[in-house]
């Protein structure tokens, strides 16, 4: 089979480059998919489907009749299945897909089932949601009649293949191993989909979100899956294969070098020590932080316990979580950020109305100062954990010295309480302010009198400084980390903290993007906190950068008037100095699944 080569574009979801034969799946077993071309074909397909429905109905009715009187429970289930079989959502939808989309019956039925599954996933009640099992049972029975019995259900291939599927569910991937599967290509899903997670854990490349992959790739065709660029090449020619080999080797070398250096401290090439820290959310992420060589935890987000359950977490629960992190990281430092959440986000019985504009609403420190009981509980747990290792605490969304002062006073009164109860804590626990509101930037000198350290939260700072909501697609491309306004703000905060002699760190996505590291170094940032899997690449960039050079780059970037000029200059500069950052480094970091 010699077919023309084709290049398809999807979303890079798990890094790596691989070549192999495609194996196209549309569901758990191996079911053919084809389009129907004539009205006659459509009519025949509908007949075939309706026949399968009749057969399934007969089977279910027969089974119900055979059931002994004392097994009534089972009869109920079969009656339920009979009802589901004739339900609008399954029957009419499948027929509609055959008629209107010209899908063959198996595919149409599968899609109808998936749609029901999606509806059910949104159901809040656990018992009701679980009834999808019955729909699935009916679906399987019906599919059995459609395709004939004995369709294969497990994955057994003569040689490892690239799996091409509409989507992959946990059930479907449980039987897959990296010895059988070279890579994944799916139509659905994003960077955090199940496929991406599985591909990461199997350490194989994946491209997701590739529209109509199962229609445009056929089983047995040769494909190159590039999980770095999101590109899939079908039937590559000789030149494509050669460049694939080169790419693959370069990437493997890069990965090897990056991993090798991740446990070593990060010094710039002119011997300035830089701290590379981890952002974590849960205690079990500490192992990731350690695996990737973090110098500490620069941002421990603490919202998880509040969002997961309906009751507010108790002090003891919080303490146990914090203690795990602090003890595991010791003697390295852990910076805990207090609750950064809006009142409307709670699952618990707090009654706050949803806000029109939550980014500008009652959240973070504002919320905590209003709900002091919740805040005190958390602060107490943090203080208790501070007795067990090196802990720092920081308050999010500070916009005035008064807020910081109020938070500090509360902290002091909790300390007194603990002292009275003879519970140990670190009396010198450093207290930091997050700099993420433009007001905090301009007031940095005043905040610095109340704070022991700063942490610049770039995600919010950029959003507020540029008035850009990144989740709004129409303006998302205006979210520019290298905007002159942002760079000046960073420089200002660094200069103020130098004058006051306090430490300043940066957390937020910008701090973990290798592209920005040299500029930020040049602006004077010496502590970076990021998702653990960014650490190895960032450390490598730091080691290859001289602070002297970086300062020059930052100075030139600061002299430019528009963000377009800055981007052009920095991209050129980086491409010249670190060509593999664009090809491998950023894609490696961008897959922030783990």
């Amino acid at each position, binding site marked *: 089979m010699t077919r023309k080569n084709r290049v398809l574009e999807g979303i890079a979801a798990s890094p790596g480059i691989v070549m192999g034969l495609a194996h196209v799946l549309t569901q758990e077993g191996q079911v053919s998919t084809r389009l129907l071309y004539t009205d006659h074909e459509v009519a025949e397909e509908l007949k075939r489907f309706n026949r399968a429905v009749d057969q399934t109905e007969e089977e279910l009715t027969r089974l119900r009749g055979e059931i002994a009187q004392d097994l009534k429970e089972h009869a*109920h289930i079969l*009656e*339920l299945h009979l*009802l*589901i079989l004739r*339900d*609008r*959502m*399954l029957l009419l939808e499948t027929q509609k897909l055959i008629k209107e989309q010209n899908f063959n019956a198996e595919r149409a039925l599968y899609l109808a089932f998936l749609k*029901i599954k999606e*509806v*059910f996933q*949104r*159901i*809040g*009640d656990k*018992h*009701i949601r679980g*009834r999808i099992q*019955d*729909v699935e049972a009916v679906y399987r029975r019906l599919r059995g009649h459609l395709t004939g019995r004995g369709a294969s259900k497990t994955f057994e291939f003569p040689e490892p293949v690239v799996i091409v599927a509409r989507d992959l569910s946990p059930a479907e991937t449980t039987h897959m191993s990296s010895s059988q599967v070279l890579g994944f290509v799916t139509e659905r899903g994003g960077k955090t989909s199940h496929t991406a997670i599985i591909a990461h854990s199997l350490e194989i490349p994946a491209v997701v979100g590739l529209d109509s992959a199962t229609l445009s790739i056929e089983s047995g065709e040769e494909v190159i899956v590039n999980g770095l660029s999101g590109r899939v090449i079908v039937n590559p020619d000789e030149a494509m294969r050669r460049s694939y080999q080169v790419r693959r080797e370069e990437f493997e070398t890069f990965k090897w070098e990056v991993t090798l250096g991740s446990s070593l401290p990060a010094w710039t090439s002119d011997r300035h020590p830089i701290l590379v820290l981890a952002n974590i959310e849960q205690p079990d992420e500490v192992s990731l932080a350690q695996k990737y060589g973090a110098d500490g935890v620069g941002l421990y987000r603490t919202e998880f316990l509040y969002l997961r359950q309906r009751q507010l977490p108790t002090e003891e629960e919080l303490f146990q979580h914090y203690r795990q992190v602090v003890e595991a990281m010791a003697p390295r430092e852990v910076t805990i950020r207090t609750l950064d959440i809006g009142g409307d986000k709670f699952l618990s019985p707090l009654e706050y109305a949803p806000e029109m504009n939550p980014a500008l609403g009652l959240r973070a420190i504002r919320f905590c100062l209003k709900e002091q009981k919740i805040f005190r509980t958390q602060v107490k747990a943090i203080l208790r954990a501070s007795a067990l290792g090196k802990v720092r605490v920081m308050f999010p969304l500070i916009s005035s010295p008064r807020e910081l002062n109020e938070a500090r006073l509360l902290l002091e009164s909790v300390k007194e309480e603990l002292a009275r109860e003879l519970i140990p804590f670190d009396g010198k626990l450093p207290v930091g302010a997050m700099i993420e509101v433009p007001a905090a930037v301009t007031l940095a000198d005043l905040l610095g009198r109340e704070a022991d350290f700063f942490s610049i939260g770039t995600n919010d700072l950029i959003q507020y400084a540029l008035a850009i909501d990144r989740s709004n697609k129409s303006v998302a491309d205006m979210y520019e980390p290298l905007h002159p306004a942002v760079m000046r703000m960073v420089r200002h905060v660094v200069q103020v903290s130098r004058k006051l002699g306090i430490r300043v760190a940066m957390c937020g996505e910008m701090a973990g993007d290798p592209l920005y590291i040299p500029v930020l170094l040049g602006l004077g940032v010496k502590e970076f906190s990021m998702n653990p899997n960014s650490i190895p690449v960032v450390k490598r960039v730091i080691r290859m950068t001289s602070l002297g050079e970086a300062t020059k780059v930052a100075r030139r970037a600061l002299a430019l008037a528009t963000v377009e000029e800055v981007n052009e200059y920095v991209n050129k500069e980086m491409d010249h100095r670190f060509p593999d950052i664009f090809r491998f480094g950023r894609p490696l970091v961008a897959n922030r699944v783990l």
Partner: protein
Amino acid sequence: MAITEPKLWTIERELWVENRLGLHARPVAKIATAAQQFDADITLEKDGLVVNARDLLDVLALDCPQGTRLVLRTRGPQAREAATSITSLFARKFEET
């Protein structure tokens, strides 16, 4: 089946899900089975969402745990019988606890 004669009244009843497990598979199957016996349009409404009581999966997907308030509407030649039948299913908690 759709009866839209203007003279026909719509019967409207407020129903509460009182059984412990809510409208899970078996109660919904009972509703659907009952609904299919009458010549009437029968709908259930929850918070503005209206579904046909015969469509089992739609009723399941309404997501009605214990304590949910529903509005039953029946219309057609057998509207009264349908309303009585379904209301009594709810009243008897679908023979559950």
